């Protein structure tokens, strides 16, 4: 962008150009370590070893791949559902609690972030192993030992705990904005407590549910470390397969095709969820 050319423009246009220039360094990083990598992944999926859609044909013709793909979706779905169910009462309590209790509840959500994700997975190994804390507690209570480590259940328990804050926070921020007097209004108009919850509170909190669920679902689809360390061969997810194709088998074509499938699932999920996160009704405007 040459200076004289900038000078010829209106002040408004000049401001816009200057504003755009400020985002250029960040965009350059994006181009180098986001765009270029994606282009390579997509390109290799259709060129290696030879041009064509052979890699995709292979992906969808191999039963193992389809099993893992289905499992990846299944795990992401269950993790998301569990997160919603667990986060909902917690976020609700946060939104109605007094100042001190709320601070404590928020603290409990944030503490897991104080140690890194790998360390937290390490902690789950300690808890879930056959002689771990959970099994010892079960034995002490007179139950039978259950196998958790290297199982789908173990992976799910760990993933839900790690992803729970991403569900709680958006839900909380929506719930905090819900006027609790609306529930009193509903009661005074003849609604039983259960009805007032399902007809008033739940619909008003749905944007938060969808926002949190979308984030959790997408992050769960791409989970790598936790399934790898807590799961076994029977709980391999798509990310692990991709890593195997590229690093162990050096098959960039297969790995690339799998990557594109995972990307498509992720952004497809986002596209489907985007309208759900929007409120169907206006929330501002009018004289207040």
């Amino acid at each position: 962008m040459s200076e004289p050319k900038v000078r010829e423009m209106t002040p408004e246009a000049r401001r816009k150009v200057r504003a755009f220039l400020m985002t250029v360094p960040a965009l350059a990083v994006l181009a180098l370590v986001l765009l270029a990598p994606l282009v390579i992944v997509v390109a290799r999926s259709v060129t290696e070893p030879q041009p064509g859609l052979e890699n995709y044909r292979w992906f969808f013709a191999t039963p193992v791949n389809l099993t893992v793909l289905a499992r990846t979706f299944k795990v992401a779905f269950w993790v998301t559902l569990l997160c919603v169910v667990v986060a909902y009462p917690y976020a609700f309590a946060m939104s109605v609690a007094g100042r001190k209790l709320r601070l404590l509840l928020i603290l409990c959500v944030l503490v897991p972030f104080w140690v890194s994700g790998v360390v937290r997975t390490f902690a789950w190994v300690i808890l879930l192993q056959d002689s771990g804390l959970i099994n010892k507690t079960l034995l002490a209570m007179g139950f039978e030992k259950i196998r958790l480590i290297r199982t789908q259940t173990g992976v799910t328990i760990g993933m839900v705990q790690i992803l729970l804050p991403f569900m709680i926070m958006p839900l909380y921020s929506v719930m905090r904005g819900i006027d609790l007097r609306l529930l009193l209004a509903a009661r005074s108009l003849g609604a039983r407590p259960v009805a007032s919850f399902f007809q008033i509170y739940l619909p008003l909190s749905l944007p938060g549910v969808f926002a949190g669920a979308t984030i959790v679902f997408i992050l769960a689809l791409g989970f790598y470390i936790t399934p790898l360390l807590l799961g076994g061969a029977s709980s391999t997810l798509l990310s692990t397969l991709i890593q195997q194709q590229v690093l162990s088998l050096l098959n960039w074509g297969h790995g690339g095709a799998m990557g594109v499938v995972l990307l498509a699932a992720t952004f497809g999920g986002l596209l489907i969820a985007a309208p759900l996160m929007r409120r169907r009704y206006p929330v501002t405007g009018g004289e207040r």
Partner: protein
Amino acid sequence: MMPLQASTPETATRRTPDRIPGAAVGIDRIRKTYGSYVALDDVSLTIRPGEFMSFLGPSGSGKTTTLNVIAGFTGHESGVLKIDGREIDRVPPHRRNIGVVFQHYALFPHMTVAENIAYPLRQRRIGRSERHAMVGAVLEKVELSALAGRYPAELSGGQQQRVALARAMVFAPGLMLLDEPLGALDKKLREALQLEIRRIHRELGSTFVFVTHDQEEALVLSDRIAVFNKGRIEQVASGEELYRAPKTLFVGQFIGESTVLRGPHESRGDETALSVAGARIRIAARRPDAGGRQCLLLRPEDLRLCAPGSTAGGHENVVAARLREKIYLGASVKYEAVLTDGTVATARMPASGPSFEIGAPVDLVWSAGCGTLLDDPGA
């Protein structure tokens, strides 16, 4: 048209009645505390069927708490609450069949105007077509038919208020509770809506309880006003009675403008005398039970301003003062004068009468029959 039975969720009225018999409310020694704070200190009150009753008082005086107790939103420790003679302390809010209009309307933001108003009808399992007709009728009553499909956020404050009103009355409750419904609106709109609420009350026939901290609003709307102060009801009476014959100094000072004269008193025969700012004031009233300190509460129109020394006294009281403020109000002029003991007196005289200038010495004159003799709690 025959008056119809007020609907309960079980026996819903099948159409909007033109007139509903108002419910009688009996509040008997209701007490509510928050820890050591006494929100309601044995409040007792009877509200007559069809009456327009206002709860008036400063914030924190217990008026909204009383409303919440009637609506069933707040539990109380002791006392009995009756509607039409039936004890309802244990009836949950959704079965009390009371229409409530909230301070900030509490309209459901995810429902249209029509859906909001249909909500109580849906709870009462009223059929679709009937519901439609009832919503249409009540929308007409509040003149909002054109906005049925709008969402609350798309309405002005006054329109939201009318929707809240329509929603509370569509199921024809015998009792309507309104919690400062006009508080968020500007003065002009507030006055217009006051008249509308009065009209609706007249047409509907149900009992209205209206919470406000605005005495003018209470005077405009109410048949009777209950004045709240510190968790107690100080007096329940018509606006005129509260103004002319307040029972406590708080009521006298809260309603309208007033001048309070304080000083040592003595009772003799049918008269009481008060020594104020060096003058001896005679009051044609006696309170045999009066102990402790007494004070005299005068209204601005009781007082007359005269040039110093121009009145002989006789049957009238005269106190010297200096004029501090003069406010022209159109038909009348309001004067503020300071007595020698620092008391500020407020007088209102016709604008057509004699005029006085700020800073001038004046005589305050009133007849011994004027004013109210009251206990003086602030010793």
